[in-house]
């Protein structure tokens, strides 16, 4: 258990509304990530953070923003949700050591109607 929680776990929202997903970790890891997972695409990186207020874009960042005001929390915001953003969203942390393995949270299933 990597001590990662995500909230909410499920959400249904309407097109055009803003949505914020939260990732919380208990172990003070520096690196945190947001991915989306869609059938046939595998996990794709949206944004990541390498410290408080330090973030960068991933492969599929359009339409998303992130914030990290505390080490333990990493927020993902869909500024104006679209149906193409219906997906399962996973947060991950990177642990130290040689491998830089990433450990994942339980996911948030988001449906945009």
């Amino acid at each position, binding site marked *: 258990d990597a001590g990662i929680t995500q909230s909410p776990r499920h959400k249904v929202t309407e097109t055009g509304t803003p949505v914020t997903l939260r990732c919380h970790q208990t172990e003070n890891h520096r690196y945190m990530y947001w991915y989306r997972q869609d059938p046939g695409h595998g*996990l794709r*990186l949206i944004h990541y953070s390498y410290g408080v207020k330090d973030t960068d874009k991933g492969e599929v960042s359009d339409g998303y923003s992130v914030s990290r005001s505390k080490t333990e929390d990493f927020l993902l915001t869909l500024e104006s949700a679209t149906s193409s953003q219906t997906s399962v969203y996973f947060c991950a942390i990177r642990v130290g050591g040689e491998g*830089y393995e990433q450990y994942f949270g339980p996911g948030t299933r988001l449906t945009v109607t």
Partner: protein
Amino acid sequence: EDQVTQSPEALRLQEGESSSLNCSYTVSGLRGLFWYRQDPGKGPEFLFTLYSAGEEKEKERLKATLTKKESFLHITAPKPEDSATYLCAVRSLNNDMRFGAGTRLTVKP
């Protein structure tokens, strides 16, 4: 561009029937190849990291191997509880992680 391709997309086995999953990759300098297990409705669970060709790692009925172009996840005498989706990922020199789409394994009793 880094690419990871997993095959087959789905695999059905009888309990005890050994098999292998494949992960082919192209990457600009491999810094690590990762295997994860994902159960329905849950996040991926880390299994192994491999760093260089020839390396092998084992955990219970699973053994992961690595060559310069691909990795195999060998499943020996699988049980129904091994049913899951298995994901492969590579980390390149710039530390980007690229995931494959996964292999969905079903083991029938």
